[in-house]
């Protein structure tokens, strides 16, 4: 074992690009991507059996629990192939959600190949199609692998046909594997050697390295995960970020196996990490290119975008005493998540909090959950909003991200909202459902292109505000998961938008306000009033709930007053039980937010986010 390790290190130092394979594994959920990753680590002795926790590559708790990958991750393994040579494999894990499309595209840009895992019992499914499409569009060599062949219900031959028919990927020599038993993993590794192209690139050219991801290390500063396209990086090199322009001294390079291992150099074609020594993650952005400060490359890697927040929401501590803690927690999170931006916000109903910008709704949920779980905060999130441009009658312009900031209607000339150019790829039988969904969300269909008999690409423009609430979930459910969505910012367009307010017991609750298209305001107001009526518990007095645009009430419901509460029988003088009941009741109230004289449970704020569903 020891001798083998030395041999590998020796080989690595030879920078033999022809012996490097950079690839991702893509699959429909539960088709076995993680077990196959684990098996590869095991078979290549990258980790010993006893170190294998399931899903080695997803390190964050929330990632494991939700079964989603949020941060990109790259692991290097050494594989002694049957041809007698040792190969360097870089297994690059990619985020799996549309909020992180940009990160996915950067991760795929770092690969030459992708292992497409298909369940031998389930066959090609929705995400198989969308993920394979992404990989093919990125120009990767596809290695089809049919997993779970140990199951009695496995039908690999039919699955091969499906892969060929539905994805137009030759599947005759698809590798048959079982992540569970380990059968076929060796064949898969051999297939990767033969089917995935070695990286191209010029070792002698000036350094060009793409940043796939970054994270913050307390002792060493920001660490960037990179793919080297030209040249090499060594400790002590003077380097520079091409888009953001900051220079730094390379404090070391290494790779993950899966624990951090320092190496002498990251050479052309290799994937690894660079210790930048920079103290601010905002200076190290996914998609940026690292080059030499003294001998820069002529052109950066293509496709860099500044990750701009798309969605804004107010985050308020239920207990106002937690305001400072919330600020500290946000600052700590930002260290590893530079896309997080915020500014202080005050709400009449909720007190002091922050307006926080996110990449998308999932990003928002993940951040909120981390704040609550890792920092022990109880938070209320208000309804998400986008960045609106408000043109006032006096000729001035205002950018707002919160309904509260919308000026009085008499001062507004017009409001413009951000539109996206969206692209959906879907099997033709679901085309109607997608068009319908787009229309319901104020989308404007531009055109449709048949990519094959089995897939159509639909282009439409859609207001971002429509997309952030539940569009993606709806799209997945209405197309049985077959649609893939991709979008980019298009432009700002004028829209007939109004501010919808909700009044509880006659008082406007700013946290419930929405900016909404006029045509949708009535239905939304009705939906909100009904929903809140269900959620707000009966109080000591009757609570009218009203929806209003300006001074005009457009919907109404009422929470009846409570007349009677629980009278627990105090049998045999068991006072403890009675007291515990009161404590429980108090705990229930503590989880509620008193707005004026009305106790509003947290679910009410969540429900407002979901009201569009029904």
């Amino acid at each position: 074992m020891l001798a083998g390790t030395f041999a590998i290190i020796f080989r690595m130092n030879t920078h033999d690009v022809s012996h490097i394979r950079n690839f991702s594994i893509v699959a429909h959920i539960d088709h076995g991507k993680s077990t196959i990753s684990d098996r590869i680590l095991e078979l290549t002795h990258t980790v010993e059996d006893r170190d294998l926790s399931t899903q080695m590559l997803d390190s964050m708790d929330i990632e494991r629990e939700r079964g989603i990958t949020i941060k990109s991750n790259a692991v290097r393994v050494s594989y002694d192939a049957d041809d007698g040579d040792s190969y360097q494999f870089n297994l690059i894990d990619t985020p799996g959600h549309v909020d992180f499309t940009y990160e996915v595209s950067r991760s795929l840009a770092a690969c030459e190949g992708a292992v497409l895992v298909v369940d031998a019992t389930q066959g090609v499914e929705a995400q198989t199609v969308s993920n394979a499409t992404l990989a093919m569009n990125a120009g990767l060599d596809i290695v089809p692998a049919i997993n779970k062949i140990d199951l009695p219900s496995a039908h690999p031959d039919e699955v091969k046909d499906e892969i060929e028919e539905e994805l137009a990927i030759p599947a005759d020599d698809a590798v048959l594997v079982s992540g569970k038993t380990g059968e076929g993993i060796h064949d898969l590794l051999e297939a990767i050697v033969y089917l995935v192209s070695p990286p191209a690139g010029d070792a002698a050219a000036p350094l060009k390295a793409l940043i796939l991801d970054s994270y913050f290390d307390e002792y060493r500063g920001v660490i960037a995960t990179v793919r080297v396209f030209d040249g090499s990086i060594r400790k002590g090199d003077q380097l520079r970020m091409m888009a953001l322009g900051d220079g730094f001294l390379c404090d070391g390079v290494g790779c993950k196996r899966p624990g951090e291992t320092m190496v002498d150099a990251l050479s052309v074609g290799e994937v690894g990490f660079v210790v930048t020594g920079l103290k601010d993650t905002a200076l190290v952005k996914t998609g940026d290119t690292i080059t030499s400060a003294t001998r820069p490359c002529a052109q950066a890697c293509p496709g860099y975008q500044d990750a701009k927040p798309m969605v804004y929401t107010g985050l308020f501590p239920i207990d106002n005493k937690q305001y400072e803690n919330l600020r500290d927690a946000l600052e700590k999170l930002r260290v590893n998540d530079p896309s997080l931006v915020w500014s202080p916000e005050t709400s009449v109903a909720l007190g002091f909090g922050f307006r926080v910008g996110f990449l998308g709704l999932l990003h928002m949920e993940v951040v909120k959950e981390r704040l609550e779980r890792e920092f022990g905060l109880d938070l209320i999130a208000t309804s998400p909003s986008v960045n609106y441009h408000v043109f006032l009658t006096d000729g001035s312009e205002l950018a707002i991200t919160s309904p509260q900031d919308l000026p009085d209607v008499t001062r507004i000339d017009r409001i413009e909202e951000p539109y996206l150019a969206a692209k959906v790829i879907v099997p033709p039988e679901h085309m109607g459902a997608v068009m319908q969904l787009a229309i319901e969300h104020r989308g404007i269909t531009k055109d449709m292109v048949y990519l094959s008999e089995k897939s159509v690409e639909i282009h439409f423009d859609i207001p971002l505000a429509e997309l952030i609430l539940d569009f993606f979930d709806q799209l997945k459910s209405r197309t049985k998961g077959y649609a893939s969505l991709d979008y980019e910012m298009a432009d700002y367009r004028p829209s007939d938008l109004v501010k919808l307010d909700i009044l509880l017991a006659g008082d406007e609750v700013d946290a419930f306000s929405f900016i909404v298209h006029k045509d949708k305001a009535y239905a939304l107001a009705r939906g909100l009033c009904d929903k809140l009526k269900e959620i707000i518990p009966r109080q000591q007095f009757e609570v009218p709930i009203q929806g209003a645009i300006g001074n005009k009430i457009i919907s109404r419901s009422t929470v009846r007053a409570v007349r009677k509460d629980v009278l627990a029988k105090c049998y045999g003088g068991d006072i403890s039980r009675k007291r515990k009941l009161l404590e429980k009741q108090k705990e229930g109230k503590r989880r509620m937010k008193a707005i004026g004289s009305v106790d509003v449970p947290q679910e009410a704020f969540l429900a407002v986010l979901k009201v569009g569903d029904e």
Partner: protein
Amino acid sequence: MSDGARDPTRENPPSVSALYLHVPFCARRCLYCDFPTRAARADDELLVAYARALRLQLAELTSLGLLEGVRTAYLGGGTPSFLGPKTLGSLVATVHRACPALAELSCEANPDSLGDELLAKLADGGVTRVSVGVQSLDDAELAALGRAHGAPQARERLSAAVKSGLLVSCDLMCAIPLQTERSWRATLAGVIDAGVGHVSVYPLQIEESSAFGRRYVHAEAAFNDPDVQAARMLEAEGALGAAGLVRYEVASYARPGEACAHNLAYWTGRPYLGLGTGAAGMLDARGYARLSVVAPQLPKLPANITRVRLTVTSSPRAVALRPRLRDLSCDLEFLTADQALCEDLMLAARTSAGLGAPLLERARERLGARRLDACLGRVLRRGLVTSRPDGALAPTRRGWLQGNELYGELWGLHEGEVLGARC
């Protein structure tokens, strides 16, 4: 309740002034029940062994002198009458022997096990009150609750109990399945006609761990809606009041002079002992120290604790097999003086006497005027209590119906967690 001034133990108040004995056996388990009780056969040897164990425990306490000041005792369940005349009779006799100052002895009974022989035995043995678990006088409702008796038997047994010369109470439940406004009125009228002098009225509470809890966990039970409960409680207050039964506690109505003194002990902060599986007791520091002599397993009293609440957690079989007090398992709660006072405020708010001026004075002193008055201001403003000329604060109709709001406010005055322990 006897006048405190005439109480011979006034100078050196007793450690324990009330005694509760729990009989955790029933003919069958009712569908709503989550009490510590179990269905048993009437000839189960465990019943006799368990009763014998309680008698041994009483003897142990007598030898300590802990029961000398006991004025009231209560045999509850479960179904004490299920023990039968012989076993129950000897238990009652032991209670009397153990508590020389006893002025009131109540016993719970169910109509189906309250035979003439048992009634006679209770009356002769010195039981002063019998509390009959009637619940309803409608056959369909009784069946829906899973009760073992029917309405005719309940009426007949109530009358027999009244004729026996005992003070008779009966328990009723409202907001139960199948109950209508009309059937509820008929049930109230029926027990009034039977001549009972005391009625307890409880709205059905659907407990998670009961059969009803499982049945109604996903279904909204319209019969149990808080509005229905309120309407039924108001109906009961009206009907019973018209018949001369005055509400003296949130769930209890009595003819003048027939209030249950034992029950009042719970609400007025008097120490009591509870024996038997699931029985609850409350002791002051002195009483706890004295009990610890025969029950060395009890943890040492933590600093600054003035009140201890104990619940026996030994199973009936464990009690029967190892009756010595030193062998009992308990859950304990230790309350500071402030916490005990807040409890007293909360419990007093359950009674029509309410928060008396002396109690309020004590609270003002201990908790600080600002803290107390802010809280009293809130409950007054919300109409949960009203101020009486003698300075007491008594629950209003709203205070009766929304007791938890009121009790929650008063208990909410305490600071810190209540310290728990287990032995």
